């Protein structure tokens, strides 16, 4: 563990900004959003979390996956990813990248667009200072201090930050500016320990879950809860689009500027179009079934396949749902 004082942090940020694209939370209209910053002072680190997760830097809302010019027969496959440092990601959102890695990099067909972005972006997480009422990252051990998908974890303590390199890439970023860092002293580590206890205590969420019970969710849930929730659902899909973990995508083909283009972009299993086939047949025809699918996918099938949950407890779907559907209710009853 290293210590970086306030002044060192400012200098590190200025060094980074002059060398590489730096993306950090910026306050706009009362919200915090990830934006490319031109100088260190633009970054605001005093936020609970950004309104949207940093998902779009890894899985853009829409991206071109190939262009094919029928005349020249040239095939253009755009590369993702400018080199960048993504600074100030909360541990929950960083943990979501770990789930992306499991699904999207799974052999034998890793997604090369995600892969190139993931390789080119260094993720620096910042431990939470004030969890919100709807946060429940502690339930999935996706925070509030450390996540599982970041290259460096920063934790704010008196006078600066504790710095933990979590990957080789994180390690080399630290080594480049080695003179700014010092070994963390006992007083730093003591404060870190206290902070960990305090934050975990302050987490509003006291849900106890058992992985063994959740992986059986599909078999055990009774549809009563889902019927109530599904009746209220207006299929706005905010839950999917603001989820740091939702990765399902749709593709779209069109002709533009002498070339055939294919894009892929975010999709949502809340939509009836998600499974309906051209024949009109739809294996998941009711909203209740779509609800069950969403929760079972996150809480039961991802853990069965990859040993991590498909939810990181960021709470966005809880706070943004216009009709108050709350995934924590599922956890309380069936977790």
């Amino acid at each position, binding site marked *: 563990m290293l210590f970086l004082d306030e002044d060192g942090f400012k200098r590190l940020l200025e060094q980074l900004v002059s060398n590489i694209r730096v993306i950090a939370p910026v306050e706009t209209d009362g919200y915090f959003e990830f934006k490319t910053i031109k100088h260190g002072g633009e970054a605001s680190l005093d936020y609970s979390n950004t309104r949207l997760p940093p998902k779009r830097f890894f899985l853009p809302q829409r991206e071109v996956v190939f262009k094919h010019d029928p005349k020249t027969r040239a095939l253009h496959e755009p590369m993702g990813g400018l080199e960048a440092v993504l600074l100030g990601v909360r541990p929950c959102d960083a943990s979501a990248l770990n789930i992306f890695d499991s699904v999207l990099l799974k052999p034998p067909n890793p997604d090369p667009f995600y892969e190139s972005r993931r390789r080119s972006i260094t993720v620096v997480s910042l431990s939470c200072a004030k969890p919100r009422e709807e946060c429940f990252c502690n339930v999935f051990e996706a925070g509030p201090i450390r996540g599982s998908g970041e290259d460096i974890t920063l934790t704010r303590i008196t006078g600066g930050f504790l710095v933990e390199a979590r990957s080789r890439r994180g390690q080399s970023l630290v080594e480049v500016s080695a003179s700014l860092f010092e070994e963390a002293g006992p007083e730093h580590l003591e404060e870190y320990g206290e902070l960990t206890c305090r934050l975990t205590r302050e987490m509003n969420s006291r849900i106890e879950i058992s992985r063994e019970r959740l992986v059986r969710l599909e078999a055990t849930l009774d549809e009563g809860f889902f019927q109530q929730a599904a009746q209220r659902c207006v299929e706005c899909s905010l839950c999917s689009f603001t989820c740091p973990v939702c990765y399902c995508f749709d593709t779209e083909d069109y002709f533009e500027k002498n070339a055939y283009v*294919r894009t892929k972009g975010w999709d949502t299993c809340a939509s009836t179009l998600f499974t309906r086939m051209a024949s009109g047949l739809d294996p998941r025809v009711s909203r209740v079934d779509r609800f069950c699918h969403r929760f079972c996918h996150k809480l039961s099938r991802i853990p069965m396949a990859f040993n991590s949950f498909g939810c990181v407890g960021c709470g966005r779907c809880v706070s943004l749902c216009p009709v108050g559907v709350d995934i924590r209710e599922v956890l309380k009853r069936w977790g």
Partner: protein
Amino acid sequence: MGLNPYAPKPARIVRIRDETPDTKTFTLSPNCFEGFTPGQFAMLTVYGVGEAPFSICSSPLNKDCLQFSIRRMGRVTRMIHEARVGDEVGVRGPYGRGWPVDRMKGRDILIVGGGIGLAPLRSLVLHLLEGRENYGEIAVCYGARTPSLLMYRDELGEWAGRGVKLYLTVDVGEEGWEGSVGVVTTILGKPELDKADAIVCTCGPPVMIRFVLRRLVELGYSKENIYASLESRMRCGIGKCGHCHFGGKHVCLDGPVFQYREMTSLPKGISPF
């Protein structure tokens, strides 16, 4: 960057054959696949329009071209139907798990098709006929709504001539039809096969599959040996897009061919039960 799994390879339509009033079989060349198992599928692209999954209906031993029987249904299939010989389409694949050909050596084989569901089974029949001596009895029970909706009518006789016992039925007869009338379950008892040991492969509309599975068990076929090919909307074919994910299974990776017991654990809707 690794290979781009979302970019298809171009192929030309070299032949178009009318099968039924709304279904055509397209022959594409070159065959860009190094090989495939009967029952696997490919994603076909109509450039600028869209992409959809289709069963490969040609023989894996045909190294020159790939064939797909396509029913006019939605946007992509309508555009394919408007294509002419010489037009270019995109192909990627082969994807998914096909029929259990490794389990078929030395056994009787029952093939049950309904309507356009015969397409992935045709690939299997052609594969079996290439090594006819390696198998026991091969029976094909095939039904369609009317005689004019039977697929591959020119070929069915040839299959019979090469050692396939053929049983045809239609829901509604037409003038000149002398075969049986009734749904396909009514002819399932006709083939005399070693039921305990025979491998059964079926594909057709979901409701047909449901009743076929039930009837097969009644007739004494072993659940361990019964397989069906299911269909789903898909976007990627490689287990990433989430569209064909049902109850922990991806139709594109774990299917489209599922074993009887696997199907019993699929959620309702996609499960034929």
